[in-house]
């Protein structure tokens, strides 16, 4: 490759490109470094583990900070949202790729694009004024009344039926991350060579059997990568969750009651944090969030790259 770029202008051009492109690398490195620096006051005071596992978050009286409630909240909310959205999203992808007539598939693709484009605050707005009150009155109150009468042991698990809490946040989040799983699954299904389908059909397989035996196993990597990407989105989703989750870090969390996640506590408290230690603790939460999200994204990238090689190998 050295001989390719020996022209003087080419060398300058390539260096200029490289210099600017390294901005991407710098951005990632800066983010890790600055978040660590910004959070170092809190991280040093409580220790990394002490901070991550501390259950107390009290900026007012004890001035003690532990991120555990937020980590736990993030894990519960994002995993439940993924679980809830995975099969509908996969169904949408299968439907668009194999079952739907062309025009309907286009409508579905358009809706998927749209879903990813609707701003988080708009979902949150709907959550505050429509979904949360509806869930409180139609789902949580009746369930709570029933449990209070027939199964009192259930009451502490259900919690206070306020409408603004875990349940609503998970529902909204689940619908917001559908396009990430669906789009990657759809692309992976479309990439499966036609011969695979034809071979299976020639053996007398039904449409579903073709899907299950000839297509899904090959598309598996793309589908899993899509799930990881959706998880990454769910972990970092801020506004819609903040608007409906009730923002309470009181453990233990209940199904109906308020909770909080790592992004939601940053969004909520950052502009009100006057003390250095409080501000630093919030940035330290951001530092933890950075690494969680990095890990999930790396996992997605790894699975996706392996899948690309697999499909190329089959072709």
């Amino acid at each position: 490759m050295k001989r390719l770029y020996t022209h003087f202008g080419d060398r300058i051009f390539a260096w200029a490109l490289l210099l600017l492109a390294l901005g991407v690398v710098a951005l990632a490195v800066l983010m890790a470094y600055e978040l660590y620096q910004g959070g170092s006051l809190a991280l040093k005071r409580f220790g990394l583990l002490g901070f991550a596992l501390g259950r107390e978050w009290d900026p007012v009286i004890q001035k003690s900070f532990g991120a555990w409630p937020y980590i736990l909240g993030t894990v519960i909310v994002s995993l439940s949202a993924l679980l809830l959205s995975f099969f509908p999203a996969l169904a949408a992808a299968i439907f668009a790729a194999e079952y739907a007539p062309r025009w309907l598939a286009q409508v579905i693709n358009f809706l998927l694009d749209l879903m990813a484009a609707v701003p988080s605050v708009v979902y949150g707005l709907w959550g505050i004024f429509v979904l949360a009150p509806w869930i409180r009155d139609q789902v949580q109150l009746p369930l709570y009344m029933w449990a209070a009468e027939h199964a009192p042991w259930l009451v502490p698990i259900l919690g206070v039926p306020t409408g603004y809490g875990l349940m609503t946040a998970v529902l909204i989040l689940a619908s917001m991350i559908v396009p990430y799983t669906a789009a990657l699954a759809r692309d992976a299904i479309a990439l499966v060579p036609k011969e695979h389908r034809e071979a299976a059909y020639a053996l007398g397989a039904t449409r579903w059997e073709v899907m299950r035996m000839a297509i899904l196993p090959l598309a598996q990597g793309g589908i899993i990568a899509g799930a990881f990407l959706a998880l990454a989105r769910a972990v970092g989703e801020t506004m819609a969750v903040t608007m409906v989750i009730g923002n309470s870090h009181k453990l233990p969390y209940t199904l109906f009651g308020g909770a909080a996640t790592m992004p939601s506590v940053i969004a909520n408290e950052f502009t009100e944090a006057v003390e250095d230690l409080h501000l630093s603790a919030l940035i330290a939460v951001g530092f933890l969030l950075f690494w969680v999200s990095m890990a999930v994204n790396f996992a997605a990238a790894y699975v996706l790259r392996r899948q690309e090689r697999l499909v190329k190998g089959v072709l």
Partner: protein
Amino acid sequence: MMALVGLGTGLAFLILLLVLAYALSQGAGALNLDFFLKDMRPPGETGGGLRQAIVGTLIVDGLGLLIALPFGLAAGILLAEYPDHPVNPYLRLLSDTLNGMPAILFGLLAFILIVKPMGGFSGLSGAFALGFLMIPILARSTEGVLSLVPKEIREAGLALGLPRWRVILSLVLPTARAGLITGILLAFARAAGEAAPLLFTAFGSPLLELNPLKPMDTLPLRLFAFAISPYEDWHRQAWAAGLVLFGLITLTSLLARWASRRRF
């Protein structure tokens, strides 16, 4: 199985359709000419609009795009046109990773790098937050578009004795123009809807502000502030803001589709 797949598909889109229906019905009622021509009013007074937020969105997002363009485009060109450059695997991996980073972290970074040294919230720091967010998006979309340009076009240029940089600047980029514009518009649309990175950078402002060194308002920020406020009239305006925001983003996406309808 068919029925189950259909049911799942319906479930997947249920909430999206409900959100859209509500935004249309609630937002349309609150939307009028004043919404675009007047600034917001204090609570208790009815009327007024969100001119300051609309103008602010365009300024902050536009500045952010200017900040992101050189870095994003350069990274994309490097990835597509110098396929065996040694930094490429890392560049690609980091772009993908940053693409999935929580938007609020870009806000934290802009806060630390710009708000703190400058001593206060500003539209400019918000622009940096959105710019950071757009860089990896632009890098990947540029790479994708450039890799669609037929090899023959590059070979033709090289066969004429053009150096590689001239081939890229005069042949490859103009050929891919429509696709590049699409990618830029989509990045713009994505950033236009973000509120999280702006909470502690652009911060928001109740009056029209054209100086990017002062706090500025944007539609998502204002929508959030109105939605969690206790005032009926502000709730109405929040729906209108949602509808306008949604319209702005749909318009940009449609424009992007229209720009890319011609293939090479």
